[in-house]
C-alpha cells in the first residue's frame, strides 16, 4: 500500500482524475493530423458552452471522430475494471476477470447473433446490448457453477472453466463468421476489440449505465469487503451473502455486456487495473472500486492511443495491445499465486 491515510487516498484520487483528463486532452490531439492541446481545450470548452471559435475542419475531427472514440475507450476501460474488481471480490480470487471467465466471449456471441439474425435487428442498438447481456450472464453463471466445488472456487478450476467456455463460444463465433462472409471483417474486429464503431449514440446509452453501475457498486463496497471474509462470516455480520453475490454478478454482467457491445472483446483490463490499484490503495473496496474504475479508463485510453499510433498508417486492434501487456502480467500473477503470495 502506497497511500495509507484517508487524506492521501482522497488526494491521490483527485490526482488520478486530473491525470486521466490530461491524458484525454493529449490523446485527442494525437493522430494523423496533430492538434495542439490549446486548440483541443478550446474546442472542448466551445462544445460545453455552445460556441464556435476554431475553424470547422479541426472542430469536426475533434468532436465527431476523436472525442467519441476516446471517450468510448475511457468508458469501456472503466466498465471492464469495475467488473473485474467486483468479480474478484465475489469469486474471492485475484484472477477473476470478464475476459478470462468467458463473460466477454458470451457477450460477444450474444451481440454477434443480434447483429446477424435479421429477426433480432428490429431492436436496434439496444437489442445488441440486451443480447450481449444474455450471453454474458449465462456464461458467468455457467462458469461459476462449473468451477464451484462445495463452498470454494479454486483458481485452477475457475480458470479452466473460463477457458473452456471461451473456447467453446469463440468457436461458435468463428462458425458464424464462415456462414456470414460479408460481415466477416466486422465480427473479426469484435473478437479482437476495437473502438472504430465509436459514436455519440453508443456513448449516450453507456454513460447512464456506467454511472448507475459505479453508484450501486459503491453502495455495496462494505459488503464486498465483508464477503472476502467468507460466506459464513459474512452472514454472521448481517450480509445475506448469496443474495448480495447474485445481485453483484447480475449488475457486473450488465456492465460487461455494455462494454462488449461497444467495443468487442478486450482482455486483461479487468485483471491488471484492480491489481495495480490494490497495491496503491489497498484492498478496501470503498477506495479500490473508484480508483480502479477511473484508472481503468486511463489505462485503456493509453492502450488505444498506442494501438493507433505505434505503426504509421496502420491501426492495431486495441485488444492486441492489452493482451501483449496483460499476458506477461497474468503469468507473474499466476506464479505468485502458486507461491501463496496472492
Amino acid at each position, binding site marked *: *500500500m502506497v497511500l495509507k491515510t484517508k487524506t492521501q487516498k482522497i488526494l491521490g484520487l483527485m490526482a488520478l482524475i486530473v491525470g486521466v483528463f490530461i491524458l484525454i486532452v493529449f490523446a485527442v490531439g494525437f493522430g494523423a493530423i496533430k492538434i495542439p492541446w490549446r486548440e483541443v481545450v478550446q474546442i472542448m470548452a466551445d462544445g460545453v458552452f455552445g460556441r464556435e471559435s476554431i475553424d470547422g475542419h479541426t472542430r469536426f475531427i475533434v468532436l465527431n471522430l476523436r472525442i467519441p472514440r476516446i471517450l468510448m475507450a475511457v468508458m469501456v476501460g472503466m466498465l471492464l475494471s469495475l467488473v473485474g474488481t467486483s468479480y474478484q471480490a465475489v469469486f*474471492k*480470487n*485475484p484472477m477473476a476477470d470478464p475476459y478470462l471467465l468467458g463473460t466477454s466471449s458470451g457477450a460477444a456471441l450474444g451481440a454477434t447473433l443480434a447483429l446477424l439474425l435479421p429477426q433480432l435487428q428490429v431492436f436496434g442498438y439496444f437489442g445488441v446490448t440486451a443480447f450481449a447481456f444474455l450471453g454474458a450472464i449465462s456464461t458467468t453463471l455457467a462458469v461459476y457453477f462449473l468451477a464451484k466445488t462445495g463452498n470454494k472456487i479454486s483458481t485452477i478450476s475457475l480458470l479452466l472453466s473460463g477457458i473452456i467456455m471461451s473456447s467453446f463460444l469463440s468457436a461458435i463465433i468463428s462458425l458464424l463468421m464462415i456462414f456470414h462472409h460479408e460481415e466477416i471483417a466486422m465480427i473479426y474486429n469484435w473478437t479482437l476489440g476495437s473502438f472504430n464503431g465509436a459514436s455519440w449514440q453508443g456513448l449516450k446509452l453507456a454513460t447512464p449505465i456506467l454511472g448507475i453501475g459505479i453508484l450501486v457498486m459503491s*453502495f455495496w463496497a*462494505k459488503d464486498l*469487503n*465483508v464477503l*472476502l*471474509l*467468507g*460466506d*459464513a*462470516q459474512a*452472514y*454472521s*455480520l*448481517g*450480509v*445475506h451473502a448469496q443474495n448480495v453475490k447474485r445481485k453483484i454478478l447480475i449488475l457486473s454482467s450488465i456492465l460487461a455486456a455494455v462494454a462488449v457491445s461497444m467495443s468487442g472483446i478486450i482482455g486483461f483490463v479487468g485483471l491488471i487495473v484492480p491489481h495495480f490499484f*490494490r497495491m496503491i490503495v*489497498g*484492498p*478496501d473496496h470503498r477506495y479500490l472500486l473508484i480508483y480502479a474504475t477511473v484508472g481503468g479508463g486511463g489505462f485503456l485510453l493509453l492502450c488505444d492511443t498506442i494501438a493507433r499510433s505505434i505503426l504509421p498508417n496502420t491501426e492495431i486492434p486495441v485488444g492486441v495491445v492489452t493482451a501483449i501487456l496483460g499476458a506477461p502480467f497474468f503469468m507473474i500473477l499466476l506464479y505468485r499465486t502458486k507461491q501463496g503470495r*496472492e
Partner: protein
Amino acid sequence: MKYEVNQLAFSYGQKPIISNLSFSLHEGEWLTILGPNGCGKSTLIAVLLRILERNQGEIRFEGKSLQGWDRKALARRVAVVYQKNEIPFGFTVREIIEMGRYPYQGRWNRWSEADEKAVQTALDLTHTEEFSKKSFRELSGGEQQRVLIARAIAQEPEVLILDEPIAHLDLRYQYEVLRLCQKLQKEQGMTILSVLHEINLAAEFSDRLLLMNRGTALAKGRPSEVVVPRLIKEAYGINIEIVQKNGKPYLFPIF
C-alpha cells in the same frame, strides 16, 4: 435465555442431518457441543446463525423467533469464529477487525467514536495491537486466530460462537485461545457456545456439555455427567477411563 432450541430438524434434500434436537443456551454460560465427525455440529451452528434455515421445530433467540430477527440486529448480538479463515488480498489486521463494526454502520456514514472504542477494546483484549498494521496473511496460525477473535469482539456480541476454533493450533495456542474466551466469559459477561473436538479441553473450560450423536442430543449436563464411559462409548465407539483432577474429568482411551 439466549438460544432456545426446540425439536429442531434439518435435512439436505432427503438426507436428515439434525432431528429432534432440543437444548438451551443460558445467559453467561459456556456450553460446548461435542460429538463425532458428521454428527451435525457444524450444521447446527449454521442454522443458529441463519446461514441455513431450519426445516422443522423452533429456535428462539432472546425469546423471539430466530426467523423474525433482522440479520444486522442479530449480528450485533451474535458473533462467530471459525477454525480457519483464508482471506484473499492484503487486508491489514486492523482493516479486518474494523469489519466487525459492519452491523453497526450504515452504507455511507462515517466511522464513529463508538466504532473506534470497540476496535481498540478488541485490540487490547487480544493483544493484537502490535501487529495491527501488518497484512493478515503474513501472520502465523495462532496470530490469525487471535485477529479473528478480535474481529468478533469488535462486533460487541452477547453470544460468541466458536466452531472448532483450535483445531489446527498447537498446544500453547489452543490454551491461549481458550483462556482468552474464558476471560471474555468471566470478565465481559459473554455467553459462549463452542464446538470442540478435544473432550478434555471441553470439560476443563465449559460449564455444560451437549453431546451429539447422529443429529440429536445424546446427553446434556455438567462435564462430569456427560464425560462418562457409557456415553463416550455410545457416541465414539471407544472405551475410556476417567481420572478426576480439580473436580474436572479427564479421559484416557483404552485400546
